[in-house]
Protein backbone atom coordinates (compact mmCIF):
# COMPACT_ATOMS: atom_id res chain seq x y z
CA UNK A 1 0.00 0.00 0.00
CA UNK A 2 2.47 2.57 -1.17
CA UNK A 3 1.14 5.56 -3.03
CA UNK A 4 1.97 5.53 -6.70
CA UNK A 5 2.08 8.65 -8.77
CA UNK A 6 0.79 10.89 -6.02
CA UNK A 7 2.36 13.87 -7.74
CA UNK A 8 1.30 16.40 -5.13
CA UNK A 9 3.36 19.57 -5.13
CA UNK A 10 5.23 20.58 -2.02
CA UNK A 11 5.90 23.84 -0.20
CA UNK A 12 8.61 24.66 2.31
CA UNK A 13 7.67 26.05 5.71
CA UNK A 14 10.47 26.88 8.15
CA UNK A 15 12.77 24.55 6.25
CA UNK A 16 10.31 21.64 6.28
CA UNK A 17 8.83 20.28 3.05
CA UNK A 18 5.07 19.88 3.31
CA UNK A 19 2.39 19.03 0.78
CA UNK A 20 1.16 22.17 -0.95
CA UNK A 21 -2.28 23.47 -0.02
CA UNK A 22 -5.51 22.08 -1.39
CA UNK A 23 -7.67 24.44 -3.45
CA UNK A 24 -9.39 27.24 -1.55
CA UNK A 25 -11.58 30.08 -2.78
CA UNK A 26 -10.07 33.52 -3.08
CA UNK A 27 -12.03 34.74 -0.04
CA UNK A 28 -9.69 32.71 2.20
CA UNK A 29 -6.30 33.90 3.35
CA UNK A 30 -4.22 30.74 3.57
CA UNK A 31 -1.34 30.89 6.08
CA UNK A 32 1.17 28.25 7.08
CA UNK A 33 1.89 28.54 10.79
CA UNK A 34 0.03 28.99 14.09
CA UNK A 35 1.76 32.33 14.51
CA UNK A 36 -0.11 33.69 11.48
CA UNK A 37 -3.53 32.60 12.77
CA UNK A 38 -6.03 34.86 14.55
CA UNK A 39 -6.68 32.69 17.60
CA UNK A 40 -8.12 34.59 20.56
CA UNK A 41 -8.41 33.29 24.11
CA UNK A 42 -11.77 33.17 25.87
CA UNK A 43 -15.26 33.11 24.38
CA UNK A 44 -15.80 36.61 23.03
CA UNK A 45 -17.95 36.88 19.89
CA UNK A 46 -14.92 37.15 17.62
CA UNK A 47 -13.22 34.24 19.39
CA UNK A 48 -16.31 32.07 18.92
CA UNK A 49 -16.48 32.83 15.23
CA UNK A 50 -12.77 32.20 14.76
CA UNK A 51 -12.98 28.87 16.60
CA UNK A 52 -15.78 27.68 14.34
CA UNK A 53 -14.11 29.08 11.22
CA UNK A 54 -10.86 27.27 12.08
CA UNK A 55 -12.64 24.04 12.93
CA UNK A 56 -14.61 24.22 9.66
CA UNK A 57 -11.42 24.46 7.62
CA UNK A 58 -9.84 21.63 9.62
CA UNK A 59 -12.82 19.39 8.89
CA UNK A 60 -12.48 20.35 5.25
CA UNK A 61 -8.85 19.26 5.42
CA UNK A 62 -9.83 15.93 6.99
CA UNK A 63 -12.31 15.37 4.14
CA UNK A 64 -9.62 16.19 1.59
CA UNK A 65 -7.11 13.85 3.23
CA UNK A 66 -9.59 10.96 3.15
CA UNK A 67 -10.47 11.70 -0.47
CA UNK A 68 -6.80 11.87 -1.45
CA UNK A 69 -6.22 8.49 0.21
CA UNK A 70 -8.87 6.99 -2.07
CA UNK A 71 -7.00 8.42 -5.04
CA UNK A 72 -3.51 7.43 -3.90
CA UNK A 73 -4.18 3.88 -2.67
CA UNK A 74 -6.44 2.15 -5.22
CA UNK A 75 -5.06 -1.26 -4.23
CA UNK A 76 -5.87 -0.98 -0.52
CA UNK A 77 -8.35 -3.58 0.80
CA UNK A 78 -11.84 -2.69 -0.36
CA UNK A 79 -13.30 -2.75 3.16
CA UNK A 80 -10.71 -0.21 4.28
CA UNK A 81 -11.45 2.00 1.26
CA UNK A 82 -15.11 1.87 2.24
CA UNK A 83 -14.25 3.17 5.70
CA UNK A 84 -12.16 5.96 4.21
CA UNK A 85 -14.95 6.88 1.76
CA UNK A 86 -17.41 7.05 4.63
CA UNK A 87 -14.99 9.24 6.55
CA UNK A 88 -14.82 11.68 3.63
CA UNK A 89 -18.62 11.92 3.64
CA UNK A 90 -18.71 12.39 7.43
CA UNK A 91 -16.14 15.18 7.28
CA UNK A 92 -18.14 16.84 4.49
CA UNK A 93 -21.17 16.89 6.79
CA UNK A 94 -19.02 18.40 9.53
CA UNK A 95 -17.95 21.20 7.20
CA UNK A 96 -21.58 21.94 6.37
CA UNK A 97 -22.65 21.83 10.02
CA UNK A 98 -19.93 24.28 11.02
CA UNK A 99 -20.54 26.54 8.00
CA UNK A 100 -24.19 26.73 9.00
CA UNK A 101 -23.25 27.55 12.60
CA UNK A 102 -20.81 30.20 11.42
CA UNK A 103 -23.61 31.85 9.43
CA UNK A 104 -25.90 31.73 12.47
CA UNK A 105 -23.22 33.52 14.50
CA UNK A 106 -23.00 36.20 11.79
CA UNK A 107 -19.58 35.05 10.67
CA UNK A 108 -18.50 34.49 7.11
CA UNK A 109 -16.03 32.43 5.16
CA UNK A 110 -12.68 34.10 4.85
CA UNK A 111 -13.25 36.20 7.95
CA UNK A 112 -10.06 34.74 9.46
CA UNK A 113 -6.90 33.16 8.06
CA UNK A 114 -6.85 29.38 7.64
CA UNK A 115 -3.97 26.90 7.67
CA UNK A 116 -3.92 23.43 6.11
CA UNK A 117 -1.37 21.88 8.42
CA UNK A 118 -2.88 18.38 8.66
CA UNK A 119 -3.13 18.12 4.88
CA UNK A 120 0.42 19.38 4.48
CA UNK A 121 1.89 16.82 6.87
CA UNK A 122 -0.26 13.76 6.22
CA UNK A 123 0.09 13.70 2.45
CA UNK A 124 3.88 13.73 2.65
CA UNK A 125 3.61 10.12 3.83
CA UNK A 126 3.33 7.61 0.99
CA UNK A 127 1.78 4.65 2.82
CA UNK A 128 -1.84 4.34 3.86
CA UNK A 129 -1.09 2.95 7.34
CA UNK A 130 1.28 5.89 7.83
CA UNK A 131 -1.41 8.37 6.84
CA UNK A 132 -3.96 6.69 9.10
CA UNK A 133 -1.44 6.86 11.94
CA UNK A 134 -1.02 10.60 11.46
CA UNK A 135 -4.48 11.78 10.48
CA UNK A 136 -6.77 9.39 12.32
CA UNK A 137 -4.72 8.08 15.23
CA UNK A 138 -3.01 11.38 16.02
CA UNK A 139 -4.87 14.44 14.69
CA UNK A 140 -8.39 13.04 14.99
CA UNK A 141 -7.62 11.36 18.31
CA UNK A 142 -6.36 14.74 19.52
CA UNK A 143 -9.62 16.23 18.30
CA UNK A 144 -11.50 13.66 20.38
CA UNK A 145 -9.73 14.98 23.47
CA UNK A 146 -10.28 18.58 22.45
CA UNK A 147 -13.98 18.13 21.66
CA UNK A 148 -14.46 16.46 25.02
CA UNK A 149 -13.42 19.72 26.69
CA UNK A 150 -14.89 22.11 24.14
CA UNK A 151 -18.43 20.82 24.50
CA UNK A 152 -18.31 21.92 28.12
CA UNK A 153 -16.68 25.24 27.23
CA UNK A 154 -19.45 26.10 24.76
CA UNK A 155 -22.19 24.96 27.15
CA UNK A 156 -20.75 27.05 29.95
CA UNK A 157 -20.68 29.99 27.56
CA UNK A 158 -24.43 29.48 27.02
CA UNK A 159 -24.21 28.10 23.48
CA UNK A 160 -25.99 24.77 23.62
CA UNK A 161 -26.40 24.66 19.82
CA UNK A 162 -22.67 24.65 19.12
CA UNK A 163 -22.13 22.16 21.96
CA UNK A 164 -24.61 19.79 20.27
CA UNK A 165 -22.84 20.18 16.93
CA UNK A 166 -19.52 19.31 18.56
CA UNK A 167 -21.10 16.33 20.29
CA UNK A 168 -22.33 15.01 16.95
CA UNK A 169 -18.91 15.51 15.40
CA UNK A 170 -17.24 13.77 18.34
CA UNK A 171 -19.23 10.58 17.86
CA UNK A 172 -18.19 10.45 14.18
CA UNK A 173 -14.54 11.11 15.00
CA UNK A 174 -14.47 8.26 17.49
CA UNK A 175 -15.60 5.99 14.65
CA UNK A 176 -12.82 7.25 12.38
CA UNK A 177 -10.14 6.70 15.00
CA UNK A 178 -11.53 3.26 15.81
CA UNK A 179 -11.39 1.99 12.24
CA UNK A 180 -7.85 3.30 11.86
CA UNK A 181 -6.75 1.55 15.05
CA UNK A 182 -8.35 -1.70 13.98
CA UNK A 183 -6.97 -1.58 10.45
CA UNK A 184 -3.46 -0.69 11.53
CA UNK A 185 -3.52 -3.63 13.92
CA UNK A 186 -4.85 -5.96 11.25
CA UNK A 187 -2.40 -4.82 8.58
CA UNK A 188 0.47 -5.11 11.05
CA UNK A 189 -0.53 -8.67 11.91
CA UNK A 190 -0.57 -9.50 8.19
CA UNK A 191 2.73 -7.75 7.54
CA UNK A 192 4.93 -6.62 10.45
CA UNK A 193 6.68 -4.17 8.13
CA UNK A 194 3.59 -1.98 8.37
CA UNK A 195 4.69 -1.14 11.90
CA UNK A 196 7.81 0.42 10.42
CA UNK A 197 5.66 2.55 8.08
CA UNK A 198 3.66 3.72 11.06
CA UNK A 199 6.75 4.45 13.15
CA UNK A 200 8.33 6.44 10.31
CA UNK A 201 5.15 8.46 9.84
CA UNK A 202 4.89 9.27 13.52
CA UNK A 203 8.55 10.25 13.64
CA UNK A 204 8.06 12.52 10.64
CA UNK A 205 5.11 14.19 12.37
CA UNK A 206 7.15 14.74 15.53
CA UNK A 207 9.93 16.34 13.48
CA UNK A 208 7.50 18.69 11.73
CA UNK A 209 5.78 19.59 14.99
CA UNK A 210 9.12 20.44 16.52
CA UNK A 211 10.14 22.62 13.59
CA UNK A 212 6.88 24.56 13.38
CA UNK A 213 5.87 24.89 17.02
CA UNK A 214 5.81 28.57 17.98
CA UNK A 215 8.24 29.54 20.69
CA UNK A 216 6.84 30.22 24.13
CA UNK A 217 6.67 33.99 24.54
CA UNK A 218 6.15 34.71 20.84
CA UNK A 219 2.80 36.15 19.75
CA UNK A 220 0.31 35.31 17.02
CA UNK A 221 -1.04 37.69 14.37
CA UNK A 222 -3.47 39.31 16.79
CA UNK A 223 -0.90 39.75 19.56
CA UNK A 224 -1.87 36.79 21.74
CA UNK A 225 1.17 35.21 23.38
CA UNK A 226 2.00 31.52 23.12
CA UNK A 227 2.47 30.25 26.65
CA UNK A 228 3.67 26.94 28.01
CA UNK A 229 0.07 26.25 29.03
CA UNK A 230 -1.34 26.99 25.59
CA UNK A 231 1.18 24.58 24.05
CA UNK A 232 0.19 21.67 26.30
CA UNK A 233 -1.86 18.85 24.77
CA UNK A 234 -5.55 18.90 25.78
CA UNK A 235 -6.85 16.85 28.68
CA UNK A 236 -7.33 13.25 27.61
CA UNK A 237 -10.86 11.96 27.04
CA UNK A 238 -10.17 8.52 28.45
CA UNK A 239 -13.58 7.03 27.77
CA UNK A 240 -13.69 8.28 24.19
CA UNK A 241 -10.18 6.98 23.48
CA UNK A 242 -11.04 3.56 24.86
CA UNK A 243 -14.21 3.62 22.77
CA UNK A 244 -12.01 4.40 19.76
CA UNK A 245 -10.13 1.17 20.42
CA UNK A 246 -6.93 2.57 21.84
CA UNK A 247 -5.48 0.01 24.24
CA UNK A 248 -5.29 0.86 27.93
CA UNK A 249 -1.52 0.96 27.57
CA UNK A 250 -1.79 3.52 24.76
CA UNK A 251 -4.22 5.63 26.79
CA UNK A 252 -1.81 5.58 29.74
CA UNK A 253 0.97 6.83 27.46
CA UNK A 254 -1.18 9.69 26.13
CA UNK A 255 -2.17 10.55 29.70
CA UNK A 256 1.49 10.71 30.66
CA UNK A 257 2.21 13.08 27.76
CA UNK A 258 -0.73 15.28 28.83
CA UNK A 259 0.55 15.53 32.38
CA UNK A 260 -2.12 13.11 33.60
CA UNK A 261 -4.92 15.58 32.92
CA UNK A 262 -8.08 13.80 31.91
CA UNK A 263 -11.79 14.32 31.45
CA UNK A 264 -14.59 11.83 31.91
CA UNK A 265 -12.19 9.68 33.89
CA UNK A 266 -12.66 5.98 34.08
CA UNK A 267 -10.32 3.69 35.89
CA UNK A 268 -7.57 2.38 33.66
CA UNK A 269 -6.07 -0.66 35.28
Amino acid at each position, binding site marked *: MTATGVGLRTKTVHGVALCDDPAREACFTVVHTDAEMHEWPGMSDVSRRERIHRHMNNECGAMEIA*AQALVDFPDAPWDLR*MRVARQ*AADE*ARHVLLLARRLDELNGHRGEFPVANYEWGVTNMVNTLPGRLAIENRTFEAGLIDLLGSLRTTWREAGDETTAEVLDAILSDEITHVRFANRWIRRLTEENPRVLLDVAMAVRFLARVNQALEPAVGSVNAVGVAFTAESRRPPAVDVDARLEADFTEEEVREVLRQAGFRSILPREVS
Partner: protein
Amino acid sequence: MPLSVRARADTVATLRHTSVYLMETLARWVPTSPEYEAKTLFGRHLWEFAQHADALGQRTSELRLGFHANRPPTEAYATILETVRASDPTPTRLTRMYDGIVPDLERRYRAYLEAVDHLMDEPTVRIVERAQTDLARMIRERDEVLTQRPDLAGPLDGGIIEALNAIEEIVDFRPMPAGAGS
Protein backbone atom coordinates in the same frame (compact mmCIF):
# COMPACT_ATOMS: atom_id res chain seq x y z
CA MET B 1 -35.47 -14.08 -23.06
CA PRO B 2 -34.03 -12.63 -19.83
CA LEU B 3 -30.30 -12.13 -19.44
CA SER B 4 -28.27 -15.22 -18.55
CA VAL B 5 -26.50 -15.49 -15.18
CA ARG B 6 -23.20 -14.78 -16.88
CA ALA B 7 -24.52 -11.76 -18.75
CA ARG B 8 -26.00 -10.39 -15.53
CA ALA B 9 -22.74 -10.99 -13.69
CA ASP B 10 -20.79 -9.17 -16.40
CA THR B 11 -23.21 -6.27 -16.27
CA VAL B 12 -23.11 -6.03 -12.49
CA ALA B 13 -19.29 -6.19 -12.52
CA THR B 14 -19.19 -3.41 -15.11
CA LEU B 15 -21.53 -1.25 -13.04
CA ARG B 16 -19.32 -1.94 -10.03
CA HIS B 17 -16.21 -0.92 -11.96
CA THR B 18 -17.99 2.26 -13.06
CA SER B 19 -19.07 3.05 -9.49
CA VAL B 20 -15.53 2.64 -8.17
CA TYR B 21 -14.23 4.82 -10.99
CA LEU B 22 -16.76 7.53 -10.20
CA MET B 23 -15.99 7.33 -6.47
CA GLU B 24 -12.33 7.94 -7.32
CA THR B 25 -13.22 10.73 -9.74
CA LEU B 26 -15.15 12.62 -7.07
CA ALA B 27 -12.32 11.92 -4.61
CA ARG B 28 -9.89 13.61 -7.02
CA TRP B 29 -12.15 16.62 -7.26
CA VAL B 30 -12.49 17.14 -3.48
CA PRO B 31 -9.08 18.74 -2.86
CA THR B 32 -8.83 20.31 -6.30
CA SER B 33 -12.17 22.17 -6.39
CA PRO B 34 -11.93 25.45 -4.48
CA GLU B 35 -15.58 25.93 -3.53
CA TYR B 36 -16.82 24.45 -0.24
CA GLU B 37 -20.25 23.71 -1.72
CA ALA B 38 -18.69 21.63 -4.48
CA LYS B 39 -16.11 19.95 -2.25
CA THR B 40 -18.71 18.82 0.25
CA LEU B 41 -21.07 17.67 -2.49
CA PHE B 42 -18.32 15.53 -4.01
CA GLY B 43 -17.24 14.32 -0.56
CA ARG B 44 -20.74 13.15 0.30
CA HIS B 45 -21.47 11.65 -3.09
CA LEU B 46 -18.29 9.61 -3.36
CA TRP B 47 -19.68 7.64 -0.43
CA GLU B 48 -22.87 6.97 -2.43
CA PHE B 49 -20.82 5.49 -5.27
CA ALA B 50 -18.77 3.49 -2.76
CA GLN B 51 -21.94 1.95 -1.36
CA HIS B 52 -23.18 1.09 -4.85
CA ALA B 53 -19.84 -0.52 -5.65
CA ASP B 54 -19.92 -2.46 -2.41
CA ALA B 55 -23.40 -3.84 -2.93
CA LEU B 56 -22.72 -4.69 -6.57
CA GLY B 57 -19.41 -6.31 -5.61
CA GLN B 58 -21.13 -8.64 -3.20
CA ARG B 59 -23.63 -9.54 -5.86
CA THR B 60 -20.92 -10.48 -8.40
CA SER B 61 -19.90 -13.24 -6.04
CA GLU B 62 -23.46 -14.55 -5.88
CA LEU B 63 -23.54 -14.51 -9.68
CA ARG B 64 -20.41 -16.71 -9.73
CA LEU B 65 -17.96 -14.09 -10.93
CA GLY B 66 -16.02 -13.67 -7.71
CA PHE B 67 -16.26 -11.31 -4.75
CA HIS B 68 -16.05 -7.63 -5.78
CA ALA B 69 -15.34 -8.55 -9.37
CA ASN B 70 -14.71 -5.60 -11.69
CA ARG B 71 -15.17 -5.50 -15.44
CA PRO B 72 -13.83 -2.50 -17.31
CA PRO B 73 -16.53 -1.05 -19.59
CA THR B 74 -16.35 -0.75 -23.36
CA GLU B 75 -13.58 1.45 -24.67
CA ALA B 76 -15.98 4.17 -25.79
CA TYR B 77 -17.56 4.46 -22.35
CA ALA B 78 -14.17 4.31 -20.60
CA THR B 79 -13.00 7.20 -22.77
CA ILE B 80 -15.95 9.31 -21.68
CA LEU B 81 -15.29 8.49 -18.03
CA GLU B 82 -11.68 9.60 -18.48
CA THR B 83 -12.77 12.83 -20.17
CA VAL B 84 -15.13 13.60 -17.32
CA ARG B 85 -12.46 12.85 -14.71
CA ALA B 86 -10.09 15.30 -16.42
CA SER B 87 -12.70 18.09 -16.30
CA ASP B 88 -11.91 21.45 -14.81
CA PRO B 89 -13.03 23.95 -13.50
CA THR B 90 -15.83 23.22 -11.05
CA PRO B 91 -18.82 24.26 -13.23
CA THR B 92 -17.61 21.89 -15.97
CA ARG B 93 -17.17 19.12 -13.41
CA LEU B 94 -20.66 19.66 -12.04
CA THR B 95 -22.41 19.69 -15.38
CA ARG B 96 -20.52 16.74 -16.85
CA MET B 97 -21.12 14.63 -13.75
CA TYR B 98 -24.68 15.59 -12.85
CA ASP B 99 -26.14 16.41 -16.29
CA GLY B 100 -24.09 13.79 -18.13
CA ILE B 101 -22.82 10.75 -16.25
CA VAL B 102 -25.33 10.42 -13.41
CA PRO B 103 -28.52 10.60 -15.54
CA ASP B 104 -26.92 8.28 -18.09
CA LEU B 105 -26.07 5.78 -15.35
CA GLU B 106 -29.62 6.01 -14.05
CA ARG B 107 -30.84 5.23 -17.57
CA ARG B 108 -28.56 2.21 -17.78
CA TYR B 109 -29.81 0.91 -14.43
CA ARG B 110 -33.36 1.33 -15.76
CA ALA B 111 -32.43 -0.62 -18.89
CA TYR B 112 -31.05 -3.38 -16.70
CA LEU B 113 -34.32 -3.61 -14.79
CA GLU B 114 -36.19 -3.89 -18.08
CA ALA B 115 -33.90 -6.67 -19.26
CA VAL B 116 -34.06 -9.03 -16.29
CA ASP B 117 -36.63 -11.27 -14.70
CA HIS B 118 -37.38 -9.45 -11.44
CA LEU B 119 -38.08 -12.62 -9.50
CA MET B 120 -35.08 -14.54 -10.79
CA ASP B 121 -32.71 -11.62 -10.21
CA GLU B 122 -34.43 -10.01 -7.23
CA PRO B 123 -31.25 -9.32 -5.20
CA THR B 124 -29.72 -7.30 -8.06
CA VAL B 125 -33.04 -5.58 -8.72
CA ARG B 126 -33.12 -4.31 -5.13
CA ILE B 127 -29.53 -3.02 -5.36
CA VAL B 128 -30.30 -1.26 -8.62
CA GLU B 129 -33.53 0.29 -7.30
CA ARG B 130 -31.69 1.71 -4.29
CA ALA B 131 -28.93 3.05 -6.52
CA GLN B 132 -31.51 4.74 -8.75
CA THR B 133 -33.02 6.48 -5.73
CA ASP B 134 -29.56 7.65 -4.67
CA LEU B 135 -28.70 8.94 -8.13
CA ALA B 136 -31.92 10.94 -8.31
CA ARG B 137 -31.17 12.47 -4.90
CA MET B 138 -27.61 13.28 -5.95
CA ILE B 139 -28.95 15.31 -8.87
CA ARG B 140 -31.37 17.13 -6.57
CA GLU B 141 -28.54 17.92 -4.16
CA ARG B 142 -26.46 19.30 -7.02
CA ASP B 143 -29.44 21.47 -7.95
CA GLU B 144 -29.58 22.76 -4.36
CA VAL B 145 -25.91 23.69 -4.59
CA LEU B 146 -26.58 25.63 -7.78
CA THR B 147 -29.40 27.46 -6.03
CA GLN B 148 -26.93 28.59 -3.36
CA ARG B 149 -24.13 29.17 -5.82
CA PRO B 150 -25.50 30.12 -9.25
CA ASP B 151 -21.94 31.05 -10.24
CA LEU B 152 -21.15 27.31 -10.30
CA ALA B 153 -23.66 26.60 -13.07
CA GLY B 154 -21.80 25.71 -16.24
CA PRO B 155 -23.09 25.48 -19.81
CA LEU B 156 -24.57 22.09 -20.59
CA ASP B 157 -21.93 19.92 -22.26
CA GLY B 158 -23.85 18.67 -25.26
CA GLY B 159 -20.82 16.80 -26.54
CA ILE B 160 -20.64 14.51 -23.52
CA ILE B 161 -24.39 13.92 -23.48
CA GLU B 162 -24.39 13.13 -27.18
CA ALA B 163 -21.45 10.78 -26.79
CA LEU B 164 -23.16 8.99 -23.91
CA ASN B 165 -26.41 8.66 -25.83
CA ALA B 166 -24.51 7.15 -28.74
CA ILE B 167 -23.22 4.29 -26.59
CA GLU B 168 -25.73 1.50 -26.61
CA GLU B 169 -23.81 -0.99 -24.51
CA ILE B 170 -21.27 -0.27 -21.78
CA VAL B 171 -20.60 -3.92 -20.94
CA ASP B 172 -17.70 -5.44 -22.79
CA PHE B 173 -18.91 -9.01 -23.11
CA ARG B 174 -15.67 -10.32 -24.58
CA PRO B 175 -14.08 -13.00 -22.35
CA MET B 176 -11.54 -11.59 -19.90
CA PRO B 177 -8.13 -13.15 -19.44
CA ALA B 178 -7.97 -15.48 -16.43
CA GLY B 179 -7.46 -13.61 -13.16
CA ALA B 180 -8.14 -10.22 -14.69
CA GLY B 181 -10.71 -7.74 -13.58
CA SER B 182 -11.27 -8.59 -9.97
